[in-house]
């Protein structure tokens, strides 16, 4: 696996609906100033390399996010991001487990699909519930049901019903997210090949079997931008140079981002 370094200052902000880029003004020749954006993750720049045939790559870098809140969130944190060509999502999870074992984290690993975790800790059939079913459940729990997008409602139920139960599990992988929460993971039927790793209820890693087609990236980005627009969030433009570089597509691969500070604080428990 090759270590890479990619730019921190980007020409375009992230399109992620609930992640905000930090904008910076830079002065260029002839005092022409322009706006650049600190990367919120090295994902797209690393995918440029993958599309050019880099093979397996990793990077450990600082990433920056605006409007973060909470005890374990910060405007700057350290991310380990790596990609494995020809790996399925499950092979990648196995490799992360090996990495954790090498760091001394040897607890038994629980692996559950998103649907299974809901069956285990609630009686919700999450993949076969439409937005109205889920709103009815929120109402029965006296929780706010104003959200218009099913993924937001799924996450509200996850945070309320499931995440507190995960605190008792030392290490668990949740995979096969509903397709509505695909982010940039390949969709297979009702689920996306996306996974997250939780250590004692704290989200530590997020991974995908990556989308390969440039057109699919464009569609996902546009979908995200439309949602940012609906939420009156700033920054609504696409990184066209990324899409151009990706025209030949990405090799079949899986990738993951791991929050280093959260991981290390869980190791010293």
């Amino acid at each position, binding site marked *: 696996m090759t270590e890479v370094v990619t730019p921190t200052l980007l020409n375009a902000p992230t399109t992620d609906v609930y992640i905000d880029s930090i904008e910076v003004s830079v002065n260029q020749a002839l005092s022409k100033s322009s706006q650049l954006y600190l990367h919120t993750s090295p994902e797209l720049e690393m995918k440029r390399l993958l599309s050019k045939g880099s093979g397996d790559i990793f990077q450990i870098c600082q990433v920056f996010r605006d409007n973060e809140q909470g005890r374990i969130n910060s405007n700057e944190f350290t991310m380990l991001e790596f990609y494995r060509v020809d790996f399925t999502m499950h092979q990648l999870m196995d490799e992360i487990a090996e990495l954790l074992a090498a760091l001394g984290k040897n607890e038994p690993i629980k692996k559950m699909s998103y649907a299974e975790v809901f069956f285990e800790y609630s009686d919700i059939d999450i993949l076969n519930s439409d937005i109205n079913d889920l709103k009815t459940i929120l109402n029965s729990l*006296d929780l706010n049901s104003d959200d218009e997008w099913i993924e937001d409602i799924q996450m509200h139920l996850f945070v309320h019903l499931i995440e507190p139960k995960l605190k008792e599990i030392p290490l668990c992988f949740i995979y096969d997210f509903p397709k509505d929460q695909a982010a940039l993971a390949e969709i297979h039927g009702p689920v996306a090949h996306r996974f997250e790793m939780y250590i004692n209820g704290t989200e530590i890693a997020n991974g995908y079997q990556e989308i390969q087609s440039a057109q699919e990236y464009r569609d996902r980005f546009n979908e995200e931008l439309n949602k940012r627009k609906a939420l009156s969030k700033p920054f609504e433009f696409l990184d066209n140079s990324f899409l151009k570089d990706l025209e030949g597509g990405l090799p079949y691969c899986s990738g993951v981002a791991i929050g280093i500070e959260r991981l290390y604080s869980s190791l010293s428990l």
Partner: protein
Amino acid sequence: MNYSTSQFKNGMKLMLDGNPCSIVNNEIVKPGKGQAFNRVKFKDLITGKTLEKTFKSGESLEAADVMELEMQYLYSDGEKWHFMDPVSFEQFDLGKESMGTALSYLVEQDKCIVTLWNNNPISVTPPNHVILEVTDTDPGLKGDTAGTGGKPATLNTGVVVQVPLFVSIGDKVKVDTRTNEYSGRA
């Protein structure tokens, strides 16, 4: 007056489903790919039950007009328990169902905390330690001062507490009202 999730802090008194509640714990959860939530543990000040709710960041709740005042327990007429604010001399009364564990520990003239909601008393918190008299207990074994096992003793409020074997009827004992445990001879 409303408080939004960003203002939530422990001890804040808010209205939830028509009941005044106190925030016991407030945790912000921001899923990597999702919006931020506040996971809040509340204590219902009327029922005493705790409940957990998850709010979308930015939601708000109405403030509850709740005050905690130190008062003196005056007497009970069997149906109501009467208290007095020693500053204003205003008197308040509560029914048995609102007395909770205070029933087991308060004797006349004791100081305690009375919680008022919209100026109506809703609960009573006894002091952490009270001194009560033993009205009934088995005689202890002579010479046993180690207090290995302990024995039950009925105190003058009717509450039963485990006490060391050397404690006898008429003794005054100190009781921790939070745990209902003997904490020494008074």
